[in-house]
Every structure is written in structure tokens, then in C-alpha cells.
């Protein structure tokens, strides 16, 4: 009898040990990437699979948003700021076995900058006039003018290093230098990555990571609940988070993103060309009601186009408190006491569709009738973004530190803003952190005082994970699911 018990105990211990060594992970994502090459399109879903896992750049975003070395081990700036020398990692290899070297860096950057380049963030490379190979592990980047944010720009997924041999096939069979190599893509269902054993740095703890694509929020909820999925870093339905929180099997991870969610107003089109009307709209909006109603409480109110977690953030929500009385007065002052009618274009995400219904009802309360027009992204990009045929729209601007868009004449906001242009021009050449932060503050105040748009809230990153998982990113300094440090506890 005792022997049987011992055997049983041994069995149990064995299964326990097997569990402790669990080295696979299934991660849920709402959107499937159209391809797996981060240099071939704007789809965030591409980076969410391959960034830091499969592909690496010279630098990279760490989980707290700082820029840390990746394929570049170190760098020096010339005294005039016009040349940067990068010392590359030795011993790094691509997953096809070929060695990584300075030639690959030159190839990747020249490809992205080329005339016929289809890199969606080509502007990251603006101002670079030369990429010189000094030796196998040293590369020099020449600039037209000092570029304070070069390291930041090179950390983007669009600036990762690819091998000339595989650049054309990376869309379906990505080959990078990261700790995971591509294993399999079942289109419409999942992408599988496996640990790359010859990785130059610290090896990943997981052996196998499966990214599963579930667009339907209900299906995502059911899949989490049924245990089909171990983590859903950006869970699409905030209304379900309370249930996950109540369930000890799960942990809800709430972090910040770079997404300033705004009610954009077409500044070029009457009546929104009048700052008094824009101010009236801003006072008609109750941010907290939108956060509660559309995001079930997740999100931080913002008063300008800037992320609250950034050191240079200034809280400017006081410039446009919820005050329907004031809004009506401002409308009357602008000669629109009778109110007016405007269209509200809404792209697919829940923050826009749900937020839009709340905005419409709040605007109606001050006499502004809205006509909601729901759109798919393709149509939104053409009609609103490219052709600027819109009155109002709700969208989250997820690029980090993107307040510079208010300086652009060709942008869909329809603004011409010499003040912002001067500020941003000055910023480009500054390398001192303190100086740069002063400019960021001035820019925030300028767009807020001008009521350029109605600034709603900073999008939260709300994820769900198995409570035993460790090492997932809480925040989202860039759109990525870095699983290189993820492991199972116990």
C-alpha cells in the first residue's frame, strides 16, 4: 500500500515538474497581421507579432518606454552632431544562419529610404544622408542637421534590420535576428514562433509562442474563459474586465498607451474654423462620462495632445471643463445660438463607435445635432484622412510623441499653424532633454488654448493574462507584444 502511495506521489511530482517547465504560450490578438514584415506596411498587428521577438533594430523600446541598445551595442556622436557611429553586436546571426553585419544595416536603411520604398514610416529616415560601412561591426550614419530623436526613430518596428537574402520573402516567412524564429502561419488563425537557439543575447524562456487571432470580442472572452488562450494583452472589450478580475485564474493588467483619443474637428471647415465654436464643443463634452460609458472606466482624461505618463506632461483639462451652459453661451457668441448640424465619422474600434454615441448625445444637449456615419478603416483613411471630407471624427493617435502633427499643413485637421511650426522646427535640433521638454510643454499649451481638437482621454492598455504568467508588458510604448522575458511562475 505504502509503495503504491509513493508511486502515486512520484507521479504527481512528475506532472508537477512538467507543469513547472511549461514553456509554451498562446497569446490572443484582435487583428491578424496582413503580412509579417514590419517594414512593409503600417498595420500595428505586424509589430505586435514580430517586434523584438523576431526582428530587432539598432535600438529598441524597453517596456517603460526608454530607448535601449539592441543590435547596436553602443554609439558615439560626433561633436557637430552630424555623424553617429554605431558599434554593432558581434556574433549575431539571422535565423537562416547567415551572420549579421554592418552591410545588413546599410542595406536595410537604404531600402527604406529609396525612391520606390513602400515603408509606411519613411519620414523616420528624413535627414539621413549617408549610411557608411566602416567595418563588419561598425556603421556610421551621416545627417544633414543634428537629429535629437535619432535613437528614438531607429527603435521603431519600421526601422528593423533585415537580411538582403530574405527581404523579399519576409512578408510570409520573416527572417530576423531576434530570440524567436518564425515557425508557421495558418492564415486566418495563428502564427507560431519558436525559440532561436543561436540568439546573440539572453535566450528566451519560452520555447514556443502562438499568436492567435480573434477579432470578435465575445469569442475572445469565451476563449480566455475556456482556457484556449493564456493571455490577451490588448483585450477588446473593457466591459468584461470586471469578470476577469473576479476570477482568481486571471490577472487584469492595466497600463498606458501612447494613444491620445481625440474628437478631431475639421479646422478648415465652417463652423469649426472658428475657435469660439471649437471651444463651445470642448465645453459640451463630459470626458468622464465617455470614459465610463465607452471604456467602462479605463482611461485618463487629457486636456491636450500629450501622454500623461511623459515627464513633460501638463494637465490642461481645466481649460475645457464640462459646462453645457458655457458651451451654449459660446455658441451664441459665435452667432450659432440656434445650434447647427454636423457629421461625425466613426472608425470601427469600440472607443470610437461607443464614444461617438455618447458625444452625439452630449452635443445634442447644447443644440448641436450630429449625424453618425460609421466607416471601415479603408473608407476612413480615404474620406476623412486623405480627402478631409468630414466635420468631426473620433480617433486614437497611437504614435508616441506625435504632437508635431499640429504643425503639418497637409494634415487632416485642416490647420495652418505657424506657431507650432516654429516650435517643432526648434525641437528638431535640440539634444538637451530639458530644452526639449520645454518645447513639448509650450506645444501642449498652444494646441489646448487654440482648442485645435477636443482632447478626450489617453487610451488605456487593458489586458488579461493567466495569473501564473510573468514578464508581459503592462504599458505599450510602442505597439508590440515582447514575449522575450515571459515565463510561467512555479
Amino acid at each position, binding site marked *: 500500500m505504502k509503495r503504491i502511495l509513493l508511486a502515486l506521489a512520484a507521479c504527481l511530482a512528475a506532472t508537477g515538474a512538467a507543469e513547472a517547465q511549461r514553456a509554451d504560450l498562446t497569446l490572443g490578438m484582435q487583428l491578424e497581421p*496582413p*503580412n509579417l514584415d514590419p517594414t512593409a*506596411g*503600417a498595420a500595428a498587428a505586424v509589430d505586435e507579432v514580430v517586434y523584438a521577438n523576431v526582428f530587432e533594430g539598432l535600438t529598441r523600446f524597453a517596456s517603460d518606454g526608454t530607448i535601449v541598445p539592441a543590435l547596436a551595442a553602443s554609439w558615439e556622436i560626433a561633436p557637430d552632431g552630424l555623424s553617429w557611429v554605431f558599434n554593432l553586436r558581434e556574433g549575431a546571426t539571422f535565423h537562416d544562419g547567415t551572420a549579421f553585419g554592418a552591410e545588413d544595416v546599410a542595406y536595410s536603411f537604404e531600402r527604406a529610404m529609396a525612391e520606390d520604398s*513602400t515603408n509606411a514610416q519613411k519620414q523616420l529616415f528624413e535627414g539621413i544622408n549617408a549610411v557608411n560601412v566602416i567595418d563588419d561591426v561598425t556603421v556610421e550614419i551621416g545627417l544633414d542637421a543634428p537629429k535629437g530623436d535619432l535613437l528614438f526613430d531607429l527603435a521603431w518596428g519600421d526601422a528593423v534590420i533585415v537580411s538582403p537574402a530574405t527581404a523579399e520573402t519576409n*512578408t510570409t516567412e520573416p527572417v530576423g535576428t531576434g530570440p524567436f524564429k518564425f515557425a508557421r502561419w495558418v492564415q486566418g488563425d495563428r502564427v507560431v514562433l519558436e525559440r532561436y537557439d543561436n540568439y546573440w543575447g539572453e535566450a528566451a524562456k519560452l520555447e514556443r509562442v502562438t499568436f492567435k487571432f480573434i477579432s470578435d470580442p465575445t*469569442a475572445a472572452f469565451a476563449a480566455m474563459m475556456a482556457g484556449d488562450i493564456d493571455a490577451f494583452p490588448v483585450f477588446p472589450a473593457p466591459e468584461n474586465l470586471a469578470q476577469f478580475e473576479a476570477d482568481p485564474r486571471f490577472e487584469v493588467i492595466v497600463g498606458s498607451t501612447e494613444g491620445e483619443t481625440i474628437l478631431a474637428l475639421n479646422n478648415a471647415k465652417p463652423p469649426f474654423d472658428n475657435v469660439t465654436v471649437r471651444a463651445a464643443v470642448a465645453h459640451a463634452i463630459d470626458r468622464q462620462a465617455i470614459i465610463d460609458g465607452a471604456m467602462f472606466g479605463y482611461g485618463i482624461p487629457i486636456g491636450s495632445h500629450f501622454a500623461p505618463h511623459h515627464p513633460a506632461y501638463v494637465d490642461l483639462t481645466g481649460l475645457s471643463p464640462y459646462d453645457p451652459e458655457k458651451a451654449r453661451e459660446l455658441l451664441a457668441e459665435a452667432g450659432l445660438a440656434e445650434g447647427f448640424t454636423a457629421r461625425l465619422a466613426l472608425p470601427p474600434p469600440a472607443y470610437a463607435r461607443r464614444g461617438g454615441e455618447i458625444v452625439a448625445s452630449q452635443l445634442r444637449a447644447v443644440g448641436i445635432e450630429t449625424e453618425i456615419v460609421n466607416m471601415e478603416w*479603408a473608407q476612413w*483613411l480615404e474620406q476623412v484622412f486623405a480627402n478631409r471630407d468630414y466635420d468631426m471624427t473620433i480617433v486614437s493617435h497611437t504614435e508616441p510623441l506625435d504632437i508635431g502633427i499640429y504643425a503639418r499643413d497637409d494634415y487632416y485637421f485642416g490647420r495652418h499653424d505657424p506657431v507650432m511650426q516654429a516650435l517643432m522646427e526648434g525641437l528638431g535640433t535640440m539634444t538637451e532633454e530639458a530644452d526639449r521638454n520645454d518645447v513639448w510643454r509650450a506645444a501642449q499649451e498652444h494646441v489646448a488654448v487654440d482648442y485645435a481638437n477636443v482632447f478626450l482621454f489617453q487610451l488605456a492598455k487593458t489586458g488579461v493574462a493567466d495569473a501564473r504568467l510573468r514578464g508581459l508588458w503592462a504599458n505599450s510604448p510602442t505597439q508590440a507584444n515582447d514575449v522575450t522575458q515571459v515565463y510561467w511562475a512555479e
Partner: protein
Amino acid sequence: MLGFALTRLVSLGLSLVVASLVIFVAIEVVPGDPAAYMLGMNASPETVAALRSQLGLDAGPVERYLGWTMGMLRGDFGVSYTYRTPVAQMIADRLWVSLPLALYALALSTLIAFPVGIWAAARRGSVADAGVMGATQLGIAVPNFWFAMLLVLVFAVNLRWFSAGGFPGWEEGLFAGLRALTLPAIALALPQASILARVMRSALIETLGEDFVRTARAKGLTRGQALRRHALRNALIPVLTIIGLQFSFLLAGAIIIENVFYLPGLGRLVFEAINKRDLIVVESVVMLLVFAVILVTFLVDLAYAAVDPRLRRR
């Protein structure tokens, strides 16, 4: 007979040309540019133009129409804009989910409908019959996506008998594949089974009234025996026609169900392709589905005409 077949063949060809034109024109006027969609908010117009020319979108409409149709005749469906893989390959992959799902649902619906229909027909006019017919009315009235939601809630979230959706792939084994398709197949089969059971029952009752069945009964067969030995075979013709119709419906009509269960099937492929403006995929899949239905109709017409010469004059 040959003449009849030839005229029908000509009209089949004409139908296909008309269909391809309709599809192409409809998709031409859809607002939204695939290249702009792929490059997102920060891309410059020059970059978008470079991608458009890479994708072959800068050619004129006539040129693109001819390129598309001529390619299809050769079996070349083009290359997906967003996935950058051959469309024919994508369709083939998705058919490995959609086709088994349609067959599974059809099998389920037939397995339910036959006994229910026969059972109700044999008890025509009884309370049991009325109850069964009421239940089938309910089955027809339930929207299948709603039924699917309830199935997921009960069997995947609460009982955890099945996974909530997704498809592991056939290489994981026949059982794993069938398991993943079970809930979707049930959701699809419920209304179909209800319709089929009703058709089965009325067809049986109809034939039970025919002379040859009455004769059989006069010879001393019970109602049940007459039904099984004589009526059933004759009732199969309308039933099979309905099954044929249901099959083509199931193949293309599972879009919503494929979304609820996130199955990588043909319907979801097109749905997502429309949203991503991957127009070449939309064109080719719709054309293929239309071709399949037209071809089946043509073959059925031929078969009927072969059996019943009177129809050839129609």
C-alpha cells in the same frame, strides 16, 4: 437533347460574363484604396503611389478587368494585396474549413430531419405531430448567430465541453478538427434541419395520398410499412432538391457563424478582404461562388431534362 444542352451552355457562358462584369464594376466603385489602407496614417502620397504601382493598381479599369478574367481562365486568381500570397492558394486553404463545415452541417441536418419528418408524417394530425411542427417553426425563426452565441455561452464558457472557436487544422487529427467544427455545424444545422423536416413530412404526406400507396395499404400493409416501403423513395426527390440548395447556401452563407466562432473559412476571408479593400480576393471568391452555383444549376437542369423530355421545351 444536345441542342438543349448547347443553348444552356451558351446561356451559362453569358451568365458568367455578366456576373464577372457586375462583380468587377461593383468593386471598382467601392470607396477606399488598398494601398492607402496598408500604409496607414503616416505614409506620404509618393509612398502610396509607389505601392499602387507595385500592386498593379495604376493600370486602367479595362486592362485590369481583362487581366483578371483572362487570368482566371488560366486558373490564375492573382495575388492578394494585403497577404501577398496567391489568391488561389488562399481559397484552397479556406475551403478545407468551409467545405467540411458545410458537409458536417448538412449531415447533421439530414440526420435530424429524416427521422423527425418521417415520425411526424406517420403520426399526422396527432398532438405529437403538432408539437414537432411547432418546434420546427421555432427552429426556423431562431437567428443562427444568436443561437451560436447561446451555444458558446453554454458549451464553451460554462461547461467547457468544446473550445469557443478557432480551428486547429486537420494535421492535428480528424477528431480535433471535427470537434472544432461541431458547435458551428450545430448552429448552422438547426434552421436547415427544421426546414428539411417540414419538407420531408409534407412530401411524405403528399405521396401517402397517391394511388400506389393506397393500393399497398389495401393489400394489408400498415401505414408505417407503406410509408417506409413505398412513400419514402418517392418523397426523396423534393427533399434532395432542398438539400442541394442548402449546400450551396451553407458554403457561402456561413459568414456570420465563421465570425462568431472565428473559423478561418471562405466567408470570413471575403468579409475581412472587403474591410481591408483586398479587392482581388473579394472579386475572385465571389466569382468562384457564383460559378459554382451556376454550374450546379446547369447540371441539375441537364439531369432533369434527361429524365423528363418534356422539360426540354421549356
